């Protein structure tokens, strides 16, 4: 571990945050810690095309959640939605939890471009979202509710559950069986699922889709400037993947 002094190793991180290693299951926290390993070999998405490596210190971290406990619940939940498998990384490996955390700290979390003036009434489903809760408030409450459900159903912390037990809780949200205040659990599930897909497949400049791995799995080549030469091709075309960070000059 030659780079331990330059960066913050996983062990160091665990010590400094006081997270009990015994509480960790699966690969969750390890994946969740990806961003804390500020190492030179930690090449992130800002990789230049044409084989040229663009070294970036990966200083990702939490901008919204205040505790690793909340963040780890989020991480495990999104990993169940988009799991690691033989195709490639899941939500944690792709950095989705950081993507969501970072989004919640900004315009998205505060519903800045949305009409948030009262009065507020429940309305019909065809009328869309009608709550005064911001997404940031909804996520914080939703994560707490997941933790509560884990305690209630299995007398454990959410991150200590087996995958199938986590699925049972997520399904309860999806079926609107969990009571939330100011918002339905079904709606929270929909937003959580959508945010997971956004984090997985957005350009890596937003801190998810690490190394464009989700694009690679899906055969989406990213930011290509032109397909003029190949648009009539009968053959399925593959390209060197490109992020918008390739456009930095």
């Amino acid at each position: 571990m030659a780079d331990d002094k330059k960066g913050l190793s996983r062990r160091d991180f665990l010590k400094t945050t006081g997270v009990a290693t015994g509480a960790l299951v699966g690969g969750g926290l390890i994946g969740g810690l990806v961003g804390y390993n500020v190492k030179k070999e930690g090449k992130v998405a800002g990789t230049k095309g044409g084989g040229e490596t663009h070294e970036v210190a990966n200083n990702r971290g939490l901008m919204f959640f205040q505790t690793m406990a909340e963040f780890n619940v989020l991480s495990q939940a999104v990993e169940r939605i988009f799991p690691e498998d033989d195709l490639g990384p899941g939500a944690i490996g792709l950095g989705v939890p950081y993507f969501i955390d970072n989004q919640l700290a900004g315009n998205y979390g505060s519903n800045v471009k949305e009409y948030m003036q009262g009065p507020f009434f429940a309305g019909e489903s065809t009328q869309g979202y009608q709550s005064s809760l911001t997404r940031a408030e909804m996520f914080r409450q939703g994560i707490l509710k997941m933790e509560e459900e884990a305690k209630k159903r299995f007398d454990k912390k959410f991150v200590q559950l087996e995958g199938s037990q986590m699925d049972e809780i997520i399904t309860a949200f999806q079926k609107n069986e969990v009571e939330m205040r100011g918002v339905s659990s079904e709606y929270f599930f929909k937003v959580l699922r959508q945010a997971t897909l956004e984090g997985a497949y957005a350009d890596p400049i937003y801190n998810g889709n690490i190394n464009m791995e989700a694009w690679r799995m899906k055969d989406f080549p990213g930011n290509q400037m032109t397909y003029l030469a190949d648009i009539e091709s009968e053959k399925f075309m593959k390209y060197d993947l490109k992020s918008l960070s390739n456009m930095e000059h």
Partner: protein
Amino acid sequence: MVTTLEKVDVVTVGVGWGGGIIGAECAKAGLKVIGLERGKSRGTADFSLIHDEFRYAMRYDLMQNLAKETITFRNDRKMRALPMRQMGSFLLGEGLGGSGTHWNGHTWRFLPYDFEIKTLTDEKYGKDKLSSDYLLQDWGVTYDELEPYFDKFEKMAGISGEDKNPFWGKRTSDFPTPPMKKTPILKKFETATSKLGYTPFMLPSANLSEAYTNPDGESLAQCQYCGFCERFGCEYGAKTTAEVTVIPTAQKTGNYDVRFHANVVEVMKTGNKVTGVKYIDTQTGEEFIQPAEVVVLTSYVMNNAKLLMVSGIGEMYDPDTGRGTLGKNYGYQILPGATGFFDEQMNVFMGAGSLGMTIDDLNGDNFDHTDLDFIHGASMSITQTGVRPIASNPLPPDTPVWGSEFKKQSIYNYTRTLSIGGQGASIPHKENFLSLDPNYKDAYGVPLLQLTYNFTEQDRNLHKYLTEKSAAIMKEMGAKTVMPGNPLTNYDIVPYQTTHNTGGTIMGADRDTSVVNTQLQHWDAENLFVVGAGNFAHNGGYNPTGTVGALAYRAAEGIVKYSKNGGSLV
């Protein structure tokens, strides 16, 4: 404290396609024109980092900030109208070019049938084909009268296409540029529809097949099929928009200026004329009055209607009595279609907004409706717009929406799924209309527009018939699984459907049934013009922009004439 500015010949409210065309034509004729745009300036140079699905397609970076202004919505008059708090069903524009900046570029001329729909339907099927709850009416202009203006719009825009559709109106000249490239995906559709007896042709496109210089001297580049059109601006200047054509044309005359961050809140009227508009500078909060000889409302459908309503110009439509015209005949679009899952991988990520093939055999009155329980139909197309990975996660029937099976299926099918979609006509109904909301206000204290809308029996029948036809085409294309679109239930403002809203400020030959005359001149104020898809008396089976462009060119000619002679143009 309101500052009154120097009077101009013409002021346009909004600078998108409507404002750009009116601005260019009036400025070329020597009139001094000001365009008031509530958003910011933008152009090709701003789009070099545009290949960003998340920022532009999911977070709507180019679109209206609903925190400042939105609409309220209810399905019917018994429901409490509530604000559309988040963008969904349609994507409102803001900034130079308006929603025309992030259009796909499908450029159609409505069918000759559309303009005389009431007369032709009554003649062929009798007066009772539809119940009297449907407010079907002729537009007051014919296709032949509009043809020169369609031609003018297409030449200005350099539209790429081929005159191979036996069903559309007669063209005086061929398309300015040849059709786009016919890809393997398009050929699948071509082969299948031909086999089924239909007549496929390349979709008329404002993503240009080759470089083009228009009659005003503006140059457009060749489309690169990059797959980022709809919801995006074009970094090549290869998608025709107002900001790369008519707006620079207007500016070159020296008679035209755009004032940004200028949000119009009222049209000022004295007697039977308007005197100008009041606007708020959104950067300082200052109020200004811009006096003008002619005022032209060229913002979106919603805002054009709202400005007339808050300014008390015209009689509000009353669904109980059927009296009044302002807000009447709101139309949307019915979207039948089918999705097909294939075995082979296809280059679905490549494409262009208008790269497609269409059949018109099931549009308008191109097929017999005697034994059918609806009128009109839809253009049915396959388009290869470039599908992107966040939004496109195609799942065969009965697949879970999350978890490992979801991941596998959505990844596998991403490059193996095609869709056929119809742009279905929307026939106005007495219960579908626009009005002012009594409770909710925008950031400037002006009431929000209220939308009352639901799908009708006619819509459901049209949708069902054409969905079945789409599924049959998809089967013929060789899909191993065909998934027809779900039946229409109630209109839902949440999922994206289409930004083809129409009506509310409709045109016509009779002042008792329309807001503006056939020159788009307001019946109650001869120097006020209203331009846009709000003029459509019903919504046809195509995208609206080609028809909006033709109406705008015709209105511009009328405005220039009015500026010399005054009086009613009809």
